[in-house]
C-alpha cells in the first residue's frame, strides 16, 4: 500500500531543462521525509507538483490517498503548505491572516476565528496577534506561516525550507515546534539545504540532485555509505605533508587524501579514539608539528559530496542567505532549475 505521500516518475520540464527527471517518493504515514539537496536540485519543484501548484508533465502522485492530478481540490483539503513560497499577508495582522486562511479552507467564520486564537496561543504569537505581520521578526513570521499551514490540522504537511535564513536560536525553536507536530502523527515532507536539519528532523532522507533522487535511507544508512570515521590532520609546515602522509598510511584503511593548500590530510580509519592517540604519538615521534587533528564521523555533507561530487554547503552559502535578504521569492528554485 502506498504511503501518505507517494510519487512515481515525476517529470517536469521548463523549456529544455528537466527540473524533475523522474522523481520517486514513498513516505509512510506518520513519518518525516527530508528532501535534501542544493538550490536548483528540484526540491521545490517536487513540492509544487505534490501540492497541486504545478502540473507535472508525466508521472503519478498520490497524497493522503488522493490522486493529485485527478482530484487536486480534494488534495488541497488534506494538506498544509508552509515555507519559502507560501506566504502570509504582511499587511494583515496574525489573527486576520489565520482567520482568512481558515475561511478559505471552508471553515465557518466563527470557527475560523476560534481556531486562529488557538493557533496564536500554540505558536506563542498571542501578544503580537493584532499587529500587522510586517512588524514580526523573521522567526515570528515563520511561526505564523507554519500556523497558517496547520489551520485544519491536515494529515499531510509540506514544508519548503522552513528554516532558511533563520538564526540558530530561531531554528532550534522551529525544530521543536516541528517535532511536536510530527509526534502527533502528521506525515511531513520537508525540504532543506541544511544537512543538519534533515539529520535532526527526518526519519528518512532522500538526496536530490539534478531532478532525481540519487540516494535514500536513514541518516545512519547514508553516513555508512561514506565508509565510517576518518582521521583528519592539518600539519603546520608544508614540507611535512609527505611524512605525515606516510604515517597515516600506516594506520589507515584506505587512501589518504591530501589538500595541499590547506595542508590537510584525511584517511579512513577504524579504532576510534584509541587509534587517534596512537596517530598523535607517532606524528610527535617523527617531529611533525600539527595545527589540528581530529576524529571525524561523516556528516551528511560528506555523504552529499561522495554522492554528487560537489558540496552542498557551497550552494547553501551562496543562495541561502541571499534568498532571505531578497525576501521570499516563490519561483526561485524553479528559476535556478531553469538556468
Amino acid at each position: 500500500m502506498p504511503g501518505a505521500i507517494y510519487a512515481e516518475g515525476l517529470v517536469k520540464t521548463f523549456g529544455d531543462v528537466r527540473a524533475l527527471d523522474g522523481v520517486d517518493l514513498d513516505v509512510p504515514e506518520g513519518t518525516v521525509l527530508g528532501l535534501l539537496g542544493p538550490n536548483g536540485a528540484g526540491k521545490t519543484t517536487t513540492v509544487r507538483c505534490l501540492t497541486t501548484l504545478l502540473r507535472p508533465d508525466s508521472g503519478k502522485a498520490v497524497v493522503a490517498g488522493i490522486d493529485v492530478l485527478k482530484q487536486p481540490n480534494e488534495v488541497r483539503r488534506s494538506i498544509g503548505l508552509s515555507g519559502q513560497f507560501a506566504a502570509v499577508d504582511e499587511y494583515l495582522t496574525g489573527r486576520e491572516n489565520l482567520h482568512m486562511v481558515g475561511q478559505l479552507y471552508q471553515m465557518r467564520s466563527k470557527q475560523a476565528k476560534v481556531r486562529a486564537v488557538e493557533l496564536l496561543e500554540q505558536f506563542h504569537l498571542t501578544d503580537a496577534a493584532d499587529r500587522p505581520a510586517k512588524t514580526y521578526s523573521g522567526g515570528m513570521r515563520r511561526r505564523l506561516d507554519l500556523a497558517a499551514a496547520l489551520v485544519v490540522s491536515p494529515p499531510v504537511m509540506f514544508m519548503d525550507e522552513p528554516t532558511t535564513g533563520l538564526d540558530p536560536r530561531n531554528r532550534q525553536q522551529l525544530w521543536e515546534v516541528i517535532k511536536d507536530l510530527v509526534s502527533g502523527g502528521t506525515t511531513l515532507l520537508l525540504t532543506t539545504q541544511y544537512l543538519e536539519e534533515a539529520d535532526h528532523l527526518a526519519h528518512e532522507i532522500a538526496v536530490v540532485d539534478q531532478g532525481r533522487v540519487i540516494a535514500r535511507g536513514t541518516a545512519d544508512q547514508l553516513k555508512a555509505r561514506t565508509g565510517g570515521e576518518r582521521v583528519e590532520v592539518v600539519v603546520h609546515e608544508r614540507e611535512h605533508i609527505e611524512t605525515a602522509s606516510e604515517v597515516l598510511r600506516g594506520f589507515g584503511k584506505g587512501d589518504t587524501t591530501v589538500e595541499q593548500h590547506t595542508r590537510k590530510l584525511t584517511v579512513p580509519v577504524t579504532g576510534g579514539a584509541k587509534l587517534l592517540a596512537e596517530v598523535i604519538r607517532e606524528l610527535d615521534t617523527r617531529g611533525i608539528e600539527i595545527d589540528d587533528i581530529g576524529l571525524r564521523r561523516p556528516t551528511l555533507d560528506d555523504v552529499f559530496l561522495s554522492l554528487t561530487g560537489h558540496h552542498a554547503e557551497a550552494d547553501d552559502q551562496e543562495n541561502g542567505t541571499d534568498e532571505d535578504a531578497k525576501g521570499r521569492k516563490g519561483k526561485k528554485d524553479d528559476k535556478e532549475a531553469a538556468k
Partner: protein
Amino acid sequence: MSAVTDAVRTAAPGGSFGQSVRDSLVVAKRNLIRMTRIPEMILFGLIQPVMFVVLFTYVFGGSMQIGDTTNPDVYKNFLMAGIFAQTVTFATAGAGAGIADDMHKGLIDRFRSLPMARGAVLTGRTVADLVQTALTLLVLAMVALLVGWRPGSMEPTNFGKIMGGFGLLLLLGYAFTWIGALIGLSVRTPEAATSGGLIWLFPVTFLSNAFVDSSKMTPWLRHIADWNPFSATVQACRKLFGDPGLSTSGAWPMQHPVWASLIYSILIVVIFRTLAVRKYRSAAA
C-alpha cells in the same frame, strides 16, 4: 483535531456558486483591509485625477473648441465625463500591481494551495478595487462640482440618469481591472505591472472623445475614437449627465452610447476574466 476537520464544510470540489461568492468576499475583505493599512495608496490615487481636473480646466479650458464655442465653462462641463472615465480606467494599474505583488510574495501560491474557488482570488481583488474606484469617483465628483461642473448644463437630466452614468463608469472601471489582473499575472514584478498597466491607457484614453471634440480629428483618428470602447462610456456619461459636446458622429457606439458602453464593458469582463482565471490556474511557474 478531528473536530476541526469536521467543522470544514463539505462543499463540492471546485466549488459551488455560493462558495465562489463567499471566497471572493473573504479575499475582497483582505484587500480592503490592506488598503486601509496603506492609506497613501488611496491618497496618491486621488491626487492624480484631481490634478487633471484642475490642470485641464484652467490650462486647456480657454483654448478648446467644443462644437462651435471656446467658452471655458462649456469645456469644463465637457471635460468631466472624460476625466471620470480616465480615472476609473487607471484602477487597472492598481489591480495589476497588487496581483503581481501577491505573486512575488508567494501569496498566490498560498491561495492556490487552499481548497477555495478558483476565480475567487482575482474576483476578490477586482471587487476591492471597485470599492476604491467608487470612493475615488465620489471625491472627484465633489471636486468637479467645486470647480464649476454643473450636470444638466446642456440638456435636462435627473438624479437617476446621473447615477446611471456613474454606474457605467464603475462598470468600465471594473472591466478594466480584469485587464489589470491579466497583466499582473503575466509580468515578473509589481513595478512592471504598474508601468505595463498604465502605458497603454494613455493612447486608449487620449485617442477618444474624452478631452477633445473628436469631430475635429483627422478622419482615420476620428474613426478610432468613435469606436474606442472608452469613448462609448464617455459619450454615454455626457448624455446621461446632460453635459455639452455630444459627438454627432454616425458611428453606432456614438449613436447608442449607453448600450455600447454596457456591451463593451461586459465583453471586456467576459474575455479578460476568462483569460485571467485560466492564467491564474497555471500561474506562478
